[in-house]
């Protein structure tokens, strides 16, 4: 309970008028009993002009229906009411007075109306109005910043495609979805052939440019919003395509390989040909029992290793079943070449 030293060295009015919050008190007939300095400043209407008037006649225009209803409800039921800024913006004609120009802008408001009991037992209500203009402005700035940061945190700054962090987060979700809904998912690892030699012959600036071009060519092959392409490391890219079965995956891997091939980026020190090429390893998940999330990635990586071993510039498929057998059984020719 608030209490004042008695006798108080100042009048309560001073506090009401200094507070940076609008305060209006209405009695059961909705007649204005209190109209503080903040309300005076933001309406331009002095208290002595409105005390004793009905609330609907107090302002220069009629307050919104929502607030008039809220006042009636609080007065008849004694229940407090919140009028949020998000849903009402500006229910009362209150203005930010700008000395510099004649224009006045309406204040964004958050309002609470609480019942108070007058001395003789009659129910009054207190309307508290706070200016939310600044907090909304701040909120919008923060949101813009956080969206930009979120974008940056998940993007590879060189190529503009997703980074590994984004991939790792979304891979688990996508795989979980594939497990729950019994749908296939394919994963591709793409590695640029002899990229170290490319950097050695053309320099790092050209190397970066090549990475950007390759990333863009790979990205163009994606068709659906759920397909993800990310830069996995130096010259390595990774793709996950939910709902893609092994037979379409084989065609897709070739599409990827040819997309880079067709860029026709000269590479004199490639031992494949005179242009940049990629090796691709891929695998597929479909209703596989007891799946460890990493094994699909390891399997695609093993397939990539096979593609490199078999001479690069090709795609290799390794099935998850065979990969799991391989990890326990001695290495054999379980993988299968799809192109050379």
């Amino acid at each position, binding site marked *: 309970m608030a209490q004042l030293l008695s006798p108080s060295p100042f009048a309560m009015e001073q506090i009401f008028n200094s507070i940076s919050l609008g305060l209006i008190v209405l009695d059961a007939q909705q007649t204005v009993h209190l109209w503080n300095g903040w309300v005076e400043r933001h309406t331009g209407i002095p208290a002595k002009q409105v005390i004793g008037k009905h609330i609907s006649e107090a302002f220069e225009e009629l307050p919104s*229906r*929502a607030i008039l*209803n809220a006042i009636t*409800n609080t007065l*008849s*039921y*004694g*229940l*407090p*009411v*919140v*009028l*949020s*800024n*998000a*849903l*009402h913006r500006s229910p009362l004609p209150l203005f930010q007075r700008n000395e510099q120009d004649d224009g006045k802008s309406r204040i964004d408001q*958050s309002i*609470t109306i*609480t*019942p108070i009991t007058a001395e003789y037992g009659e129910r009054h209500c207190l309307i508290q109005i706070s200016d*939310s203009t600044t*907090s*909304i402005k701040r*909120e919008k700035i*923060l*949101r813009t910043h*956080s969206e930009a940061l979120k974008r940056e945190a998940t993007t590879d700054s060189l190529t503009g495609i997703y980074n590994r962090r984004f991939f790792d987060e979304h891979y688990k979700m996508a795989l979980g979805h594939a497990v729950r809904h019994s749908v296939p998912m394919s994963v591709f690892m793409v590695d640029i052939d002899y990229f170290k030699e490319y950097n050695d012959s053309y320099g790092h600036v050209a190397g970066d440019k090549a990475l950007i071009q390759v990333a863009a060519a790979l990205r163009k092959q994606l068709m659906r919003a759920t397909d993800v392409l990310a830069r996995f490391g130096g010259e390595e890219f990774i793709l996950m395509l939910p709902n893609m079965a092994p037979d379409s995956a084989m065609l897709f891997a070739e599409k990827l390989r040819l997309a880079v091939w067709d860029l026709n980026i000269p590479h004199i020190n490639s031992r494949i040909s005179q242009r940049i090429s990629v090796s691709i390893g891929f695998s597929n998940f479909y209703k596989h029992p007891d799946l460890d999330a990493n094994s699909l990635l390891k399997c695609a990586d093993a397939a990539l290793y096979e593609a490199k071993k078999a001479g690069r510039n090709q795609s290799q498929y390794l099935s998850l079943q065979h990969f799991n057998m391989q990890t326990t059984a001695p290495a054999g020719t379980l993988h299968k070449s799809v192109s050379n």
Partner: protein
Amino acid sequence: MNSLTELHLDALSEVFNVGAGRAAASLSDIVGEEVRLSVPSVEIRKSSEIDVSAMGLQSERFGTVHQTFSGSFEAEAILLFTEEHALEIVRDMMGSQISLEDLAEFEQEAMCELGNIILNACLSAMADMLNIPLNCSLPDYTVATTEEIFRRVSDDLDQPYVLLLHIDLAIERRHSEGHLIFLLSSTSLKGLIIQLERFLGAV
């Protein structure tokens, strides 16, 4: 006597549906579209018996609006919307796209207002029909997990009864479900029964 009969529950259901109608009218005013709100069922349970199946809760996390009220009986009211539904409602009302934790200050305020409208409408209907005046705190909004809510309900030894309302809220083509929980002390439950008896005798 510490339990509500079918007749009592029917009467309460009538009271709350009147409240729901009032809340729907206020919400329609704000949203500018037709909002339909109904209370298809009312149950009374012991707090200790409350669990996931009793509430038909499917979500992990909830947006909750809480108010305490006092008067001829004292109770706490908690309005629950599942994470998904809370988001849908706020998005529908304001057209923003954000996750529940990110619900910024002014969206939380909007959730508070939504809860406040529904709670006040139910309470004012009780006040009118059962002739019980009530005082009430301002609403606050929090995000809570299912466990936190159950813990809060079952740990409250002073309020061993739970009045559980299922709420259907439809805004335009979107349909949402919520729950309204009243935590009642045995005295409050007795008080409520007395008022219900009076109401049933009067009609």
